[in-house]
């Protein structure tokens, strides 16, 4: 149902993962995850090591934050994030690269995991693991199945259906075994018989490699998926793998599913087997007009400018837009001095021409937005209702089911910014619901 086929543009597919050097100063944001910010547990002048806890999760919906570098805490202050919003942060002046002794930095692959499910979840919490698919949902909450619910399927999202992004693909090509160990650990934590790794059919090499490695593991099934955006969206992925459908307003666990991103399973491997907190991102630096394409392993907190400078020197003169994420759901970066955070998957540079929106024309009621919507909604109707202030009607027509995949705007021949209008409408509906309470 629905979906579109944007140009794939996986031009950084063949760029092996490189290690990005550590910058001279690091700004580590305290809310890099969904929920409340972590509470700083270091003060100005403290010495920190790589992997040391600097922000503690004290609220329920929160995740630990660790220092990605070694050095001295310069200040505990705030910083403007990539989208211009001020957030609490710890500034660290980098000195050397001294890691905590507990972290296993050897290249050996450690397969056996003797931890019990509860201990695994505790480890995920300790290491500050969050979902790396974009939502940055704290992993210890996701893998702690609430009373009365039962997980039957673990689904690993390796669809990477967003144009341009290649970080998951590179992880599968370079670290398939670690990924499978991470998936096995998550499978054990949930106590489910099988884990399914969904990969879109446009990545035959990754499918072959993962199938070969998965043979050595019990209960890991590689699930090739039809190429169609948004195949990797949670509800669509669950449907493609299990045939089940998550009803409106429900969570995957309500149909017995837990979905995790492929990058997360690699981070889980490092956290559980190597004692390494989530302090690094695997990140694609790409763009049609860039002189070179890269995939990097980056210390979380490295700024966009640092990354751009190291990868390509400077942005091309004709740069129109810098996006964090893919072209369909990524966000346009406002502030290139901002530090990267957990879950960042790319620095995507678009040219002026590509970045320009075509002028809006009249709606011709062609219904393309409706046919493209993977949730079976009516975007044209939301647009009209929101413009006319009919927020309750928008809610009745299930505007909150919108997953903001962008298929409606993508396919609209009148260039109506439907996704923008729906986002606005969703916010208005939420505000209305909050006011009613």
């Amino acid at each position: 149902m629905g979906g579109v086929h944007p140009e794939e543009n996986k031009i950084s597919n063949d760029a092996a993962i490189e290690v990005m050097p550590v910058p001279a100063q690091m700004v580590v944001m305290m809310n890099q995850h969904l929920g409340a910010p972590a509470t700083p547990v270091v003060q100005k002048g403290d010495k920190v090591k790589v992997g040391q806890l600097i922000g503690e999760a004290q609220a329920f919906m929160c995740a630990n934050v660790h220092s990605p570098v070694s050095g001295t805490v310069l200040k505990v202050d705030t910083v403007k994030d990539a989208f211009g919003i001020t957030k609490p942060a710890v500034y660290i002046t980098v000195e050397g690269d001294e890691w905590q002794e507990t972290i296993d930095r050897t290249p050996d692959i450690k397969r056996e995991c003797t931890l019990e499910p509860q201990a695994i979840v505790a480890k995920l919490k300790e290491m500050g693991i969050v979902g790396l698919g974009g939502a940055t949902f704290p992993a210890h909450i996701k893998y702690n199945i609430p009373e009365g619910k039962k997980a039957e399927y673990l689904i690993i999202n390796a669809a990477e259906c967003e144009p341009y992004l290649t970080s998951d693909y590179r992880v599968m090509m370079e670290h398939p075994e670690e990924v499978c160990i991470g998936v096995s650990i998550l499978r054990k934590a949930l106590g489910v018989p099988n884990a399914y790794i969904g990969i879109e059919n446009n990545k035959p090499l990754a499918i072959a490699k993962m199938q070969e490695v998965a043979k050595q593991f019990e209960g890991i099934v590689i699930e090739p998926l039809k190429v169609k955006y948004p195949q990797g969206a949670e509800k669509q992925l669950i449907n493609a793998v299990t045939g089940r459908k998550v009803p409106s307003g429900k969570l995957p666990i309500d149909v017995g599913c837990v979905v995790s991103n492929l990058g997360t399973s690699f981070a889980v491997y490092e956290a559980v087997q190597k004692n390494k907190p989530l302090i690094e991102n695997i990140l694609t630096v790409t763009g049609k007009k860039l002189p070179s394409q890269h995939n990097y392993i980056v210390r979380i907190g490295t700024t966009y400018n640092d990354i751009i400078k190291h990868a390509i020197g400077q942005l091309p003169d004709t740069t129109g837009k810098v996006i964090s994420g893919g072209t369909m759901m990524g966000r346009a970066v406002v502030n290139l001095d901002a530090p990267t955070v957990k879950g960042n998957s790319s620095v995507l540079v678009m040219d002026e021409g590509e970045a320009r929106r075509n002028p809006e024309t009249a709606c011709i009621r062609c219904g393309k937005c409706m046919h493209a919507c993977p949730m079976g909604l009516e975007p044209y109707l939301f647009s009209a209702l929101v413009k006319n202030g009919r927020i309750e009607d928008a809610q009745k027509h299930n505007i909150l089911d919108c997953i903001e995949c962008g298929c409606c705007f993508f396919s609209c021949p009148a260039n109506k910014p439907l996704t923008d209008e729906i986002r606005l409408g969703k916010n208005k509906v939420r505000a209305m619901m909050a006011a009613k309470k």
Partner: protein
Amino acid sequence: MNLLNISGSPHVHSDESTKKIMWRVNMALIPALLVAIAYFGINALLVSIIAVVSCVLFQWLIEKFILKVPTTICDGSAVVTGLLLAFNVPATPSMMWIVIIGALVAIGIGKMTFGGLGKNPFNPALVGRVFLLISFPVQMTTWPVVDGIFPMHFDLATGATPLAAFKEGSLGSDVTLWDAFLGHIGGSMGEVSALAILIGAAYLCWKKIISWHIPVSFIGTAFIFSAILWLVNPDQYMDPLMTLFTGGIMLGACFMATDMVTSPMAKSGQLIFGVGCGLLTIIIRNWGAYPEGVSFAILLMNSVTPLINRWCKPARFAE
């Protein structure tokens, strides 16, 4: 370096546009136009040009001097209206001025009074056509006699469409099904050749501008309904295949009923719309005052499109 652009996602677009859609519809009308020129000669070409030019001109004048909005004549929609209007009139010399009135009604009343492209409840070309049919009944039903391909002279008064002849009780025995399929019959200039229309419709389907739902349900319903009548009484009712290939069913089902603006959006709604058009067409043809009912059928169904849209929702995910 320039300032960076900021916008919400998505950051890419399919590059589809209203303009592209409209010009593709115009492309799809070319086979039928060529057949019309082949059968009806230079008159067909002249009527088409006059209709298109007047539609575009009226739209420009109204946008520029009455509505005072940026002009949209380049989007090709007025050209589509002009061509379809021309296809719905006979290719006779008197049409060369009558069609200008039709264009004014189609664009002025059918489209711009409602706010222009996308806002009109009725198919503008059909509004123009029906206005002319009521106002100029004689001229609108005087058909040039088709006498071979690329005829040099016409005998205007004696021609009758197979439908009109049938209405009067005598289907000319010389009209074969094959003639009707290829277009070698009397009629409005764009509706005579089912083959040319189907070629255009296939192109639109391939480009995903129309889907099969409306044409198939329209033509299918008309076929089944007329087949039932014919089986009950073959002397009184027309053979179902002849029913399909004469008059405007093919043109209506493929190009007029499928107009995005005035037809339902959901596939289920499109099926209801097509069935309604098919039923009404056969009812009007057999029991109405006019020998042809396609225009009225489509306009009537246009009027219930908002209701159909309200009723026929797409299947929600997980419902």
